[in-house]
C-alpha cells in the first residue's frame, strides 16, 4: 500500500468517525438546539415551566385582542392541535399577523396563560407579488365555497 493510500483511508475513516460523533452529539442535544416549544410540548410539560422559555406556533385567526392602552395584546398561539393564550405588552414586529408564525419568549402564568416579554415574527419561505397572493386567496375561498355548496346541489 502506498503512503498516499494510507492517508486516504485514514482521512476517510476520520471523516466518517467525526460524522457519527457529530450526529450522536446533535441527537443528544436535540431539545437544547430547538429554539422554541410548541403548545403541545408545553401542555405535555416538556417545557421548563418554572423558567423563561420560548413558545412558538401560529397566531390563531381571529384571536388578537388589543387593550385600550394600545400596547397590551392578547392572542392565542396554536400548533393546530393545542392552544395557549399569550399576553404581551410592547411593540409587535411589522410581520406580526393572524395566521402567521410567531416565536414568543416569557413565562407561564399560574392560570396557564403565557406572559411574553418578547414577540418575534416568523415568516415562511414563500415570496410572491401581492396580486398573486390575492389571486391565490380568492381561488382558495372560491373552492372552499364551491365545496360547501356541493352537498346542497346534490339531489
Amino acid at each position: 500500500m502506498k503512503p498516499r493510500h494510507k492517508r486516504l483511508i485514514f482521512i476517510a475513516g476520520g471523516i466518517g468517525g467525526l460524522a457519527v460523533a457529530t450526529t450522536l452529539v446533535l441527537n443528544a442535544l436535540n431539545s437544547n438546539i430547538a429554539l422554541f416549544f410548541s403548545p403541545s410540548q408545553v401542555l405535555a410539560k416538556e417545557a421548563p415551566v418554572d423558567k423563561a422559555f420560548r413558545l412558538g406556533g401560529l397566531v390563531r385567526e381571529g384571536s388578537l385582542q388589543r387593550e385600550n392602552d394600545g400596547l397590551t395584546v392578547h392572542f392565542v398561539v396554536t400548533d393546530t392541535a393545542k392552544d395557549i393564550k399569550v399576553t404581551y405588552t410592547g411593540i409587535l414586529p411589522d410581520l406580526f399577523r393572524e395566521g402567521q408564525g410567531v416565536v414568543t419568549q416569557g413565562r407561564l402564568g399560574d392560570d396557564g396563560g403565557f406572559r411574553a416579554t418578547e414577540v418575534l415574527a416568523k415568516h415562511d419561505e414563500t415570496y410572491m407579488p401581492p396580486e398573486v397572493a390575492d389571486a391565490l386567496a380568492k381561488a382558495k375561498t372560491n373552492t372552499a365555497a364551491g365545496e360547501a355548496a356541493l352537498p346542497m346541489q346534490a339531489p
Partner: protein
Amino acid sequence: MAINWFKYSSPASFYPLAGRMIPWAMAVGVLTGVAGLYVGFFVAPTDYQQGESYRIMFIHVPAAWMSMFTYIVMAVWAVAGLIWNTRLSSMMATALAPTGAMFTFIALWTGALWGKPTWGTYWVWDARLTSELILLFLYIGFIALQASIDDPRRAARAGGLLALVGLVNVPIIYWSVKWWNTLHQGASISFAKAPTMAAEMLLALLLVTLAFWAYTIAVAMMRVRCEILESERQSNWIYETVEGLR
C-alpha cells in the same frame, strides 16, 4: 485535443493559466452582478408580506450559499493537499479562505439587517444563525492557524486538518432549518421541490449567485498567484515568466 490536466498541478504551469482566468472571471462577475442587482431591485415585484425589505435577499442568499460552497471547495483542496502532498492544492485552500470568510460575514450582516424589520430582532440564537456564526469562526481559525505557523508544509497540514474537521458544520447549516425548529425560515430553493418565489426573483437570485462565483474565482486566482510567487521565489521559472522580473 486532449488536455493534460496534471500539467496544471505544477505551480509553474498553473501561474500563467490563473492569470488568464482573472479578466474573464472579473468580466462575467461584473456583468452578471449588475444585471442581477438591476433585476432584483427594479424588475422583481414587491413581496406580499414583507414589501420591499425582502430585496436584501438578493445579497443575503447568494452570500450565504457562497459561504457554504466555498468552504466545501476549500476543504476538498485541503484534503487533496493532505493526501497527495501537492503544494498547489494547499495554496488553493489558503487562497479561498478570506473570500469565504467575507461572504460568511456578509450573510450574517445582511441577515441581521433583514431580521430587524421582519422578525423584530437583529439576532437570535437559533440553529441556522449559530451554525453560520461557527462557520465564520472556522474560516477565521483556518486563516489564523496557517498564519501562525512559519513552515509552509506544516501550516498547510494543520490548516487542512482544521478545514476537514469543520466540514461537518456545512450540512448542519444547510439542514438546520429542517432538523430543528428555528426562527429562520426554510429553503425557498432546493433540489427536492419547485422554488417558492416569483420567476423574476429567482432570476435575480441566480444572476447574483453567478456573479459571486465569478468574483470568488477571480480573487482566488489573484491570491493563489501571490501564494505561488511567495513559495517559489527561489526558482528560476519565476524570473523567466513573470513580467517585471525579467
